[in-house]
């Protein structure tokens, strides 16, 4: 029998796994005791029936009360074994348990051999019957003892050795060589055969224990790996939470100081300095936010909260919120088509996607240009397109605009207009929500981005239709989940 060596990972914190041989033998002991205690109860019934038959045979030949006393004693021992073996064995530990099982079976085997004391008086038929009983009992014990050699022998030897001796030394009156030494030798052969069977049973048992141990070790390793993964995930979340909170604090402080300073009596040049300082602070804040958002998305700590939402309601809100900004920039904002459409999405994240896309459109559309938003249905799919009349993206750059920090025509790395993270964030958010994104652009004519969120499920819609607006109640007001905050 071969056993694959169980690989033990260096990072495994469970040192008891290192010594595999010890672990196996300990497990074999444990499993054997378990199996024995489980089997021996049922075996007692067979043993008692065998003893009853043997006792009757003995009683026929004997004129003493010994067979009756023996039977009663046997019944008592059987009862004790049935009810008390577990207590007796489990009250000690380790190898002591095996010793106690051996002792139990030794007593039992010796008791089973007691009817042999009257062997000389038995007829041939009775001798055969007694022999069959003892040999069958010994055979059965190969499996009830799981082939554990010392335990099996403790039971079988006290029965079969006296039996062989009895055949050899107490010949029947018409005995020939076969019914004395012949039978005796056959019984010893049979004993040898049983030892072999027991060894094979033990081998199977050992193998099953090793498989089980391997399984236990695999489980421990899996658990350890899972713990490591969990921990690194937690530390990632902790880092991001700390970064989001603490990295931004100095900017917040500058913000409040700039605000205070701007209220002081200042000459116009100083006021201009304050205004620039404020704008630098805002740019830095926005860039840091985008960077942290991207890190959060990459760390996998953002889980979308998907439910059915009215896309037309979200779009209408969005256009209303955006209209004043577009007006200041001199860009006209047109909502072309807005049919009733329900999709499966995370409304908070979807609003961010829309925000980033329209911000881009606004950034690259010159004064007097137009941004058109359109919602339409194609089979079960909903499509939302944002088309601008901006500068457009050259064909060779189309595939790269989703890369982080990539900006078309910005070889000088002028970051005054942001870090170039907007579309990277859009792409990751869309992946999270299963939104298909398509980008079509002609330089000098404009860019159209089409997003296609997955269709709604058969559940209720959680965004109100645009015509019936509700007050914010715990159920309808802001999503209970948002960007991950400080780990607590």
């Amino acid at each position: 029998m071969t056993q694959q060596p169980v690989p033990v990972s260096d990072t495994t914190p469970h040192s008891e796994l290192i010594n595999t041989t010890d672990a196996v033998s300990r497990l074999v002991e444990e499993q054997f005791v378990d199996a024995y205690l489980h089997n021996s109860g049922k075996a007692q019934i067979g043993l008692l029936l065998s003893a009853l038959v043997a006792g009757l045979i003995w009683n026929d030949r004997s004129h003493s009360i010994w067979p009756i006393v023996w039977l009663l004693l046997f019944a008592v021992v059987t009862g004790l074994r049935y009810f008390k073996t577990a207590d007796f064995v489990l009250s000690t530990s380790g190898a002591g348990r095996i010793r106690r099982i051996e002792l139990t079976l030794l007593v039992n085997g010796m008791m089973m051999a007691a009817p042999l004391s009257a062997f000389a008086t038995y007829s041939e038929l009775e001798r055969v019957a007694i022999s069959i009983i003892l040999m069958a009992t010994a055979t059965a014990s190969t499996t009830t003892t799981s082939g554990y050699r010392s335990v099996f022998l403790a039971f079988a030897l006290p029965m079969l050795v006296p039996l062989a001796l009895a055949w050899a030394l107490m010949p029947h009156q018409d005995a020939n060589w076969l019914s004395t030494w012949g039978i005796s030798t056959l019984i010893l052969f049979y004993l040898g055969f049983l030892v072999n069977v027991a060894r094979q049973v033990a081998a199977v048992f050992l193998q099953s224990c090793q498989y089980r141990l391997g399984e236990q070790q695999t489980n421990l390793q899996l658990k350890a790996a899972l713990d490591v993964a969990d921990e690194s995930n937690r530390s990632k979340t902790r880092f991001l939470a700390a970064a989001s909170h603490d990295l931004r604090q100095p900017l917040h402080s500058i913000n409040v100081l700039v605000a205070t300073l701007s209220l002081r009596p200042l000459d116009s040049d100083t006021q201009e300095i304050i205004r620039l300082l404020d704008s630098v602070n805002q740019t830095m804040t926005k860039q840091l936010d985008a960077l942290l958002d991207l890190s959060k998305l990459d760390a996998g700590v953002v889980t979308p909260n998907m439910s059915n939402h009215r896309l037309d309601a979200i779009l209408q809100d969005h256009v209303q919120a955006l209209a004043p900004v577009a007006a200041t920039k001199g860009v006209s904002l047109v909502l072309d088509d807005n049919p009733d459409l329900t999709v499966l999405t995370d409304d908070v994240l979807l609003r961010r996607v829309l925000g980033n896309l329209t911000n881009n459109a606004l950034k690259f559309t010159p004064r007097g240009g137009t941004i058109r938003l359109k919602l339409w249905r194609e089979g079960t799919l909903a499509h939302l397109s944002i088309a601008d009349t901006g500068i457009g993206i050259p064909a060779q750059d189309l595939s790269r605009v989703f890369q982080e920090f990539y900006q078309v025509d910005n070889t000088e790395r002028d970051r005054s207009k942001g870090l170039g993270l907007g579309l990277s964030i859009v792409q990751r958010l869309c992946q999270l929500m299963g939104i298909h994104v398509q980008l079509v652009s002609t330089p000098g004519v404009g860019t159209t981005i089409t997003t296609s969120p997955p269709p709604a499920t058969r559940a209720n819609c959680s965004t109100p239709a645009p015509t019936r607006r509700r007050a914010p109640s715990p159920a309808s007001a802001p999503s209970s989940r948002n960007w991950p905050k400080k780990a607590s």
Partner: protein
Amino acid sequence: MKALIIDDHPIFSDGLRLLLRTLGIAQDIETCTDSTQALHLLQQNAFDLILMDWQLGQQSLSGTELIVELNQLAPNARVVVVSGEADASSVHQAIEAGAVGFLPKETDSASLIDAVRVTSKGQIFLPDHVLDSTHCRADGAHTSNKSPFEGVRLEDAYPGLTPRQRDTLVCALRGEPNKAIAKDLHLSEATVKQHLKAIYLELNVHNRAEAVYLMARQRIQVF
């Protein structure tokens, strides 16, 4: 007006204190860095306005817990959250807990000044993006286009409310528990509950949190 600033970053607190002084909102301003100090200060002083950070670090109570504690210890103070995180769910939690305004730290300086001014004038300030993304049944009729500091007076916006009901509403908006309102206005708790029921019906809202959103959206001069 006496104000308390709770923020784990002392430089921010100092800056905010300078801003409040410069704006002439409050001259007597205490600052502290965690919830234990805050609750200690509250036992010795009566504050009118408490500006608290939403995330005070591991040693402090959570934002929600601190709001509840502050409102219990100082039922007559207005608790306003000043936070770097101003996502809709944080704002919602703060309002539910009893805060009466939410100022984002992350705005341009002009918006920050506006938010502080609006708050000091007795209006409820909530971030625009939160008001935009939450709908209100009563929207439309009362939407005001006036400049942020000149809020509509409560009695003008809701003439259907009796003076007694207005007092009750103001206490409730401030985050006072019903028991404290009853004590302040010399009413029984049952009467307070009845008043609130009538008020929410008049405002067309279900609870205090919805009323806070409504007041913020309509720029109503509450305090």
